[in-house]
């Protein structure tokens, strides 16, 4: 299936074959577009996504774009087309590292980093399984580490992450090297007033 058919700007570099796997089910026919996803994403991110005229500056500057299944400019186009399932299920939203190069360069002042964060939250809320599930698990392990001691402790955080992701072998040797260089202390440093941290966490998750 060709993207040109739907008015997509084809990529100027390195066409990713995985693009072909995405089924365009939501778009039933040209001229019939469900705008509810566009409205939802606009509201959640606070960015005016209809301003995008596909200049590709975001994608050209994006450090992780070559590894994304859908490039940042196409994410915006697909939101305009109402392709909610494809966008929320993409690996792109999880590969964005919020470096903000896109937002700095966008001539229409659309901050795509903000949009990506909003899309990640929407994906979690809607229960769409993350295409890059390890990144989501890392975020969870990170928050748990703060919840435990107020400060992040890399050793226990990474053990937690490894248990969650069940990926024990990757980075085992660099991790051991860091440990041997004395970069990762064995015991976490806890702060005074951990009760306060616990209380803030509990109230925030309850009232949110």
């Amino acid at each position, binding site marked *: 299936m060709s993207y040109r058919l739907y008015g997509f700007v084809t990529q100027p570099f390195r066409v990713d074959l995985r693009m072909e796997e995405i089924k365009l089910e939501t778009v039933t026919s040209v001229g019939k577009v469900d705008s509810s996803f566009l409205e939802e994403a606009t509201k*959640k*991110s*606070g960015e005016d996504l209809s301003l995008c005229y596909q200049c590709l500056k975001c994608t050209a500057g994006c*450090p*992780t774009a070559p*590894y994304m299944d859908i490039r940042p400019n196409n994410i915006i186009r697909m939101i305009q087309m109402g392709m909610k399932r494809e966008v929320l299920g993409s690996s792109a939203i*999880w*590969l964005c*590292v*919020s*470096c*903000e*190069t896109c*937002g*700095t360069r966008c001539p229409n002042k659309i*901050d795509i*980093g*903000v949009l*990506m*964060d*909003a899309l*990640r*939250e929407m994906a979690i809320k809607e229960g769409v399984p993350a295409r*890059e599930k*390890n*990144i989501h*698990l*890392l975020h969870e392990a*990170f928050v748990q*580490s*703060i919840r435990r001691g*107020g*400060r*992040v*402790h*890399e050793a226990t955080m*990474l053990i937690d*992450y490894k248990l969650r992701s069940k990926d024990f072998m*990757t*980075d085992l040797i*660099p991790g051991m*090297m*860091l440990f041997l*260089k*004395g*970069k*990762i*202390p064995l015991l976490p*440093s806890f*702060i*005074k*007033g951990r009760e*306060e*941290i616990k209380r*803030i966490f509990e*109230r*925030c*998750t309850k*009232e*949110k």
Partner: protein
Amino acid sequence: MDYLYFPGCTLYTKAKNFDQTARNCSLLLGFELKELKNWTCCGATFPLATDNIMALLPPSRILATAREEGTALTTLCAICFNVIKRTNRLIQGDVEKRDKINNFIEKNYQGDLQVLHYLEILKKDIGFPQLKEKVKKPLAGLKAAAYYGCMLLRPFEEMEFDDKEKPALFEEFLEALGAKAIEFPYKIECCGSFQSVGSPDVATECAYKILGSAIKNGAEAMVSTCPMCTFNIDHKQSDIKQKYLDFNPIPVFYFTQLLGVAMGLDYQTLGFDQNAVDPIPLLKEKGLL
């Protein structure tokens, strides 16, 4: 003059050499970094989605406790600087969120704190010409590439650190130390950040592009302000070497380590044993040790 100082989690674990050298150098420059009491993690990413209050609470709590102790807060880690400064701006400008945050953290903080980076103190309060006079051992002949990364600069309206595409502050700092600052196009490019855990290949590629560009432009060493960037461009070099056989590793310094060398600190206190690529041969070659 003393500065209230927020180290951040990584400077207590992975980047101890960054923290220690900064503290030692500040004493030689005539000020002290006074550590904030009972600090917590800053949250490590500024929440961009509009309704994520939870992620705003750790930096807000840090700001509120810092305000009880002083009027300015200094950071070293570029990520902490980014998160805390942006949260401060948000609290200043958004009354509704400010009230909500204050309710959760059980404090009353109005956003009237100044958030500083160590480099800003060196530039504005000490001054690079004065710094140059204080240098005991100029880094003559060292060609270093100043690597900014993302967090110091972007988003530039909020960070107000330097120019968004062509910053120069870091280079001015290196020139003040007597080194030759190399210009290279990837100095503001992202290092791949936390992808080094979830998708290590992505981060390795990003690091290769940055290092390759610096080496091509004549750099003998990289200088960084961020523990995350340093992990990606320093510790990933062994992975890069495996993938690209023609790649020659170069040492990556924290800017305070080079400051320490220039200020004449004993090299054993500079924590070079924690750098992944050993910088000692290069420094010896340049006659700096």
